[in-house]
């Protein structure tokens, strides 16, 4: 960090003694008025809920009953209860499986694969493929989940009709697989779009040179494309991981069931806090979830920093 004060253009008229970093010449009070709306909004909608969650998480607050009228401070009890509850760890484990298969492997790889395979196609075929994938992304989650309910329905579902597997209850027999495929279907468009633009930014000269020296498709991908779009891969993986980690949409398909087999963390918190009524415990788990999010984000930031330094 430099301490040298550079004189910005146009500040010559300002009196000598005034601090040079007050570029606009407003003074503290007036500058304060300008930032106040932003600060109020941040305080109200970010800071306050965060502090409120921490407070709630240390009480036995419930949606109904005596503890709703007069919640008591219970310290770290909720955290101990959450961390010693096997269903919490089960939910965390389900979340990891869900993130790994539907987010990192599914959306990223399929998104890249789609972007890669349509990069040289032009005209209506490309528009059609992109349009179809984007449609899944654009359709509201409630509508998409209803489509999937109909698709996978046990008695009159389209999938059973096509495969001739009448009577298979996909959402009961293969719940996790179902929501993983559902989430891949919903979210792949983002990765595809991001990789499409990344691929178009790869210098054609490098690909041409690789081709001239006889590199195979795989070698081009490994030695030319991936090094060029590493930054995009990282950003995409970070965003997808966080989104998938926090998504609530699978609830609309399976409602966390059957018997908690698709109770990923966001659903687990909802089930605990709202229908279960344990708002205090729910807030405590939310905070744990927030910390996990922070850890993921920090890990990616570190990786990307190490990358730029090299």
């Amino acid at each position: 960090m430099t301490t040298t004060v550079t004189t910005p253009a146009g500040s010559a008229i300002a009196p000598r003694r005034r601090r040079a970093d007050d570029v606009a010449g407003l003074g503290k009070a007036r500058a304060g008025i300008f930032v106040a709306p932003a600060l109020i909004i941040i305080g109200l909608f970010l800071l306050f809920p965060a502090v409120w969650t921490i407070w709630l998480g240390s009480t036995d607050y419930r949606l109904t009953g005596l503890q709703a009228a007069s919640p008591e401070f219970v310290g770290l009890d909720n955290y101990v209860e959450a961390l010693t509850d096997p269903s919490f760890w089960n939910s965390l484990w389900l979340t990891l499986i869900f993130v790994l298969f539907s987010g990192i492997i599914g959306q990223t790889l399929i998104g890249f694969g789609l972007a890669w395979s349509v990069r040289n196609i032009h005209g209506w075929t490309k528009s059609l493929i992109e349009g179809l994938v984007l449609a899944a992304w654009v359709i509201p989650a409630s509508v998409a989940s209803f489509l999937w309910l109909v698709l996978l329905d046990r008695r009159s579902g389209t999938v059973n009709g096509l495969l001739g597997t009448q009577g298979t209850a996909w959402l009961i027999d293969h719940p996790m697989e179902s929501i993983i495929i559902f989430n891949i279907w919903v979210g792949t468009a983002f990765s595809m779009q991001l990789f499409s633009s990344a691929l178009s930014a790869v210098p054609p000269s490098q690909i041409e040179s690789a081709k001239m020296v006889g590199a195979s498709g795989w070698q081009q991908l490994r030695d030319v494309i991936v090094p060029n779009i590493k930054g995009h891969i990282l950003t995409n993986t970070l965003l997808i991981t966080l989104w998938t980690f926090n998504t609530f949409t699978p609830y609309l398909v399976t409602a966390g069931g059957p018997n908690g087999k698709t109770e990923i963390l966001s659903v687990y918190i909802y089930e605990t806090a709202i229908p279960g009524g344990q708002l205090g415990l729910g807030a405590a788990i939310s905070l744990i979830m927030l910390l996990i999010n922070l850890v993921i984000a920090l890990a990616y930031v570190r990786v990307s920093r190490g990358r730029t330094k090299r």
Partner: protein
Amino acid sequence: MINHSRRRTVGAFAFATVGALLFAGCASSAPQEDAESGPVTLTITANAITGGKNAAEADWITDWVIPQFEDAMKDDGKDVTVEFEPQGVDDENYKTKVALDLQSGEGADVIGMDGIWVGEFAEAGYIKPLSEVAGDAVDDWDGWDQIPEAVQAALSFDDERYGVPQGADGRVLYYNKDLFEQAGLPADWQPESWDDVLDAARDLKKLDGVTPIQLNAGTAMGEATTMQGLLPLLVGTGEQVYEDDKWVGDTDGLKDVLDLYKTIYVDEGLGDAVLQQEAAGRDTSFQLFAANQIGILLEGDYFWRSVINPAEGVGTAPMANRDEVVGYTKIPAMKPGSGINDQDFVSMSGGTGRVLNPNSDHPELAWELLAFMNSQEAYQERNATTISITPRNDVNDAILAEDPMLTYVSEEVLPITAYRPPLAAYPQVSTALQQASLDVVSGMSVDDALSAYVDSVKDIVGDDAVAGG
């Protein structure tokens, strides 16, 4: 530079805070409108919707209650508009919505509610005794004389009336006479033990494409699992969910109940276990019964009135030939005489009703509306198309004779029925019971399910308040 900017930020933040407080101060000193002058709007909410769940109630509110009440108010020189906020969702979701409304100080003025929620809502301070909300007019209401104490108790807590009940109900076994005939079973069926029911189910199993018996289980159905599954069975073993200040735990009765679930769903495949885990399983079970694909179903009179009712726009899964095809019979105890009070047959009853929202801006008018909805005239109109058991003796005497099913419930079932404990902990215990049935249905052993259940109940009510070893 860093220090400067931080100081600046702090300064700006302090400024912003002061500004916000000043602004808030201005806002709160704005003149308040006089609450009782000018046009008044009242709202009613209930888990009822035209063309869907409890359609008859929704139609009655929009087509009769609202216009009639508005006219009556106009005659009194009051300009009152009543709005209905319909809902058509699972009871659990409706309960969550009402709890959140009340918690945030919002919500309709008159709220439809299951009597069993009254305890926990009252303890939370979300609802208040009627006379506290609306004053002396409540205790002076002449309608109370027509409503038996036992029925009033459904919407009471700690001996205070929190709402007006809207009826009584009872649970029976429904069976499909066509399927019974095909399986060589009598059309006039009265099983006397669980074994009789199982025997009939085994006969029905020989029919193709028919699920012999569907006994509510699992958490997806919520309270329906407890009321139309576990509890009617439990009272058939002579036990109750709450008895002598203790909640049912690892007892012989509960073990017998879970064993029955295991027999039906796991050992003999007499019921469709997958259906009990589906998110919309209860509605599906209604549709399958209406499509002659379920032989025996334990349900309340609600099923008769609002689900398979063939009347236009009333039933959600109407059966045109309901009166000829659907039979109903009392739920037998495990063995003759093994039920509570040594009964041969058992049932469970609940009660729904309507409460006043303590946050109402016009509590006196809201009470007038509620009393109007519970007048003799209103119940007669309510039962013009579909008859249900009302809380009022004067109305029941006049109408029940028209419907043999409800007469049956009123005369045969209500005398032997049992009620859920009006305690705030009940809904949590109920959830634990549902989980136990789900565990058994999805393949866990009865002993494991029972011990998991006992652990959760001990967490809810404490070790000392659980019966059984």
